[in-house]
């Protein structure tokens, strides 16, 4: 004992650690892992040097000589590879975030449909789930892409249901608001509104008042500025429509495919969650005279959420990772950027490691959010 005290707190902790069962085995394991890892890195870098292959991430700041087509973050040939990767990541995020939201909606609707007393609705939803879940996603993506490019008319024969809206096999073209200096201040007002709304919600828990606080400031600024809202309609100029907003068939195919495929899985998760709520709860609600819709919304769904959330996390992670299949149909997301950077620079290890890091961070981020939500949804037991 005296000996241990003499070494101070750290020493005592260390000695007690070494006395744990299996200490030698675990320490040796760590030593082997470190040596193995070091040998692997050393061998790879020695081999790359022998092959006189360039290595390192310096290429990210060199000029990239390709075009991506569409991206949230503007990118043109001549920008850096770093920007190309940012543009690719933004496209991945766009399709993943929209896919997660839409697939949840599809899942909820189909799950409720499957539980519906109507035999036809329940049967149709059952069939949807069974057929969609059992066809590989890649095939579905190629199907949607082929369907959109060969099923829709070419640019010069565009379908135009409403003036300014054009549907072609090169995408859907919509009118877009023309930029106005007042739009900046409206955006700031929206941020202020969002802050106010959050404050009201957390302080007073008043939903309607919070909504009002969100909408009022931007609306006031908008009206004060004289309602500057002009739309620019797309126009056929040269080969393509110019102006307005464009939704490409590749993006649409990606979003449709991911939404429908993941939606079918989500439907099963949600259905299981709803069925997992004790039927006594439902009966108690009915005994209180609540309508079936209110029972579902106020009693069943909140309790089902606890069962649903962990599986949904899984499903969302899958959706994000599966967005990498986009490379097959030509949607320019992060894998496409990495492939072309790999081709141009030959730095395979660096490019692959970037995609791995991107997907790993996206997945960890998504699961962190959902774990937080899950913790909040759990029963608080006293």
């Amino acid at each position, binding site marked *: 004992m005296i000996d241990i005290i003499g070494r101070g707190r750290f020493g005592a902790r260390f000695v007690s650690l070494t006395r744990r069962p299996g200490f030698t*085995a675990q320490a*040796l*394991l760590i030593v*082997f892992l470190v*040596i*193995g890892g070091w*040998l*692997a890195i050393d*061998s790879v870098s*020695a*081999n790359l040097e*022998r*092959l*006189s*292959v*360039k290595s390192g991430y310096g290429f990210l700041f060199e000029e990239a*000589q*390709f*075009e*991506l*087509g*569409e991206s949230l973050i503007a990118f043109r*040939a*001549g920008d850096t590879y770093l920007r190309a990767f940012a543009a690719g990541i933004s496209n991945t995020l766009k399709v993943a975030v929209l896919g997660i939201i839409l697939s949840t909606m599809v899942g909820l609707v189909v799950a409720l449909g499957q539980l519906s007393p109507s035999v036809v609705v329940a049967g149709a939803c059952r069939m949807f789930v069974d057929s969609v879940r059992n066809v590989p996603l890649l095939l579905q993506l190629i199907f949607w892409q*082929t369907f959109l*490019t*060969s099923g829709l008319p*070419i*640019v010069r024969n565009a379908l135009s249901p409403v003036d300014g809206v054009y549907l072609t*096999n*090169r995408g859907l073209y919509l009118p877009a608001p023309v930029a106005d200096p007042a739009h900046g201040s409206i955006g700031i007002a929206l941020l202020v509104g969002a802050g106010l709304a959050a404050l009201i919600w957390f302080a007073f828990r008043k939903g309607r008042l919070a909504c009002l606080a969100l909408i009022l400031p931007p609306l006031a600024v908008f009206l004060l500025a004289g309602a500057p809202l002009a739309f620019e309609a797309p126009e056929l*100029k*040269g*080969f*393509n429509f*110019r102006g307005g907003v464009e939704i490409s*068939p*590749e993006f649409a195919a990606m979003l449709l495919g991911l939404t429908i495929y993941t939606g079918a899985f989500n439907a099963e998760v949600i259905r299981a969650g709803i069925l997992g709520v004790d039927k006594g709860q439902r009966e108690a609600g009915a005994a209180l005279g609540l309508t079936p819709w209110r029972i579902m919304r106020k009693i069943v769904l909140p309790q089902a959420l606890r069962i649903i959330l962990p599986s949904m996390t899984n499903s969302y992670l899958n959706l994000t990772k599966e967005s990498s299949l986009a*490379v*097959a*149909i*030509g949607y*320019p997301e992060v894998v*496409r950027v990495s*492939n*072309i950077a*790999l*081709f*141009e*620079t*030959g730095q*395979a290890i660096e490019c692959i490691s970037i995609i791995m890091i991107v997907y790993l961070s996206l997945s960890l981020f998504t699961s962190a959010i959902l774990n937080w939500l899950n913790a909040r949804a759990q029963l608080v037991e006293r």
Partner: protein
Amino acid sequence: MIGMKSIAIGAIAMLGATAAQAELLDDIKARGVLKCGTLNFLAGVGFLDDKGEWSGYDVDFCKGAAAAILGDASKVEFVILTGAQMFPALESGEIDVLSRSVTQTISRETTMGIDFIGPNHLTGQGFMVHNELGVSSVDELDGATVCVLAGTTTERYLADWFRGKDMTFTPVATETSDQMFANYFEQRCDAVTMEPPYLAIRRAKSATPDGHTILDALIAKSFEAPVIRQGNPALREVLQWMHWGMITAEEMEITSENVDEIASSSTDPVVRRFLGVEGAIGEGMGVSNDWMVRVIKSIGNFGEFYDRNLGSGTGLDVPRGMNALWRDGGAMVAPGWQ
């Protein structure tokens, strides 16, 4: 613990094995088979038919290389590779020779640890457009949507060229050329860009062979060449001189039909040295003395090689152009065989 140790030792041994490497030519001879990376979907270039037979320009080069090194054109193991896989496969040693219409460029040769052989196919990058657009020159393509193969030099040249002309375009880039041409023929794109021989191949097979024009101008040179890993000088010499040997054979009018006869009857010392009847050029290079006879017998001289795969008699009829001999107005030349 013992299990853990043996795994670690095994892993270390494996890492060590890749570090030690002899000249590839000796490895191929010891193995008795040449591993060749190529493609399987372009008739005339690299194609695997429904009977499991390989054919095409890129495929034949590997067959010729096997004939030169191993004495038998059938001793090739073909590995099908996509554009993104091809360089990693070559670097890792999965294949010995990459013959997949790879375009030779200075950045590739100087930064990637590879050597180009040849180049054995001189072409460029052109456009095919729908006739109904009424486009007759590449300069009218401003604002066009262009179908392009993802991860190829064509993609880079396309961006460079439009940028240089201060014109804009929207790319639709896909991984496979099947997908790319499907997009083009569905009019998802106004134009499709690739080397004219490949455009001609697809146009000939399409539903509307008359509905498309291949524009005259080329926006970039594309000199295609087989590739090997750097640091294998003996293999490089054999393959480079095999390419020049095929050109020399065409100059000397030696074909796959008459090569045996000329070898036995010719009195010309240059021809006799070329075919290995005299001297010991082949042995000095690490192959047999009659290696060029075997190459010519299996894949022919350069003219036969071109015509069988791309030229007259294939239905593709891609003119030889730059790929003709220098004396016929082309750019194919070979150093002397002294």
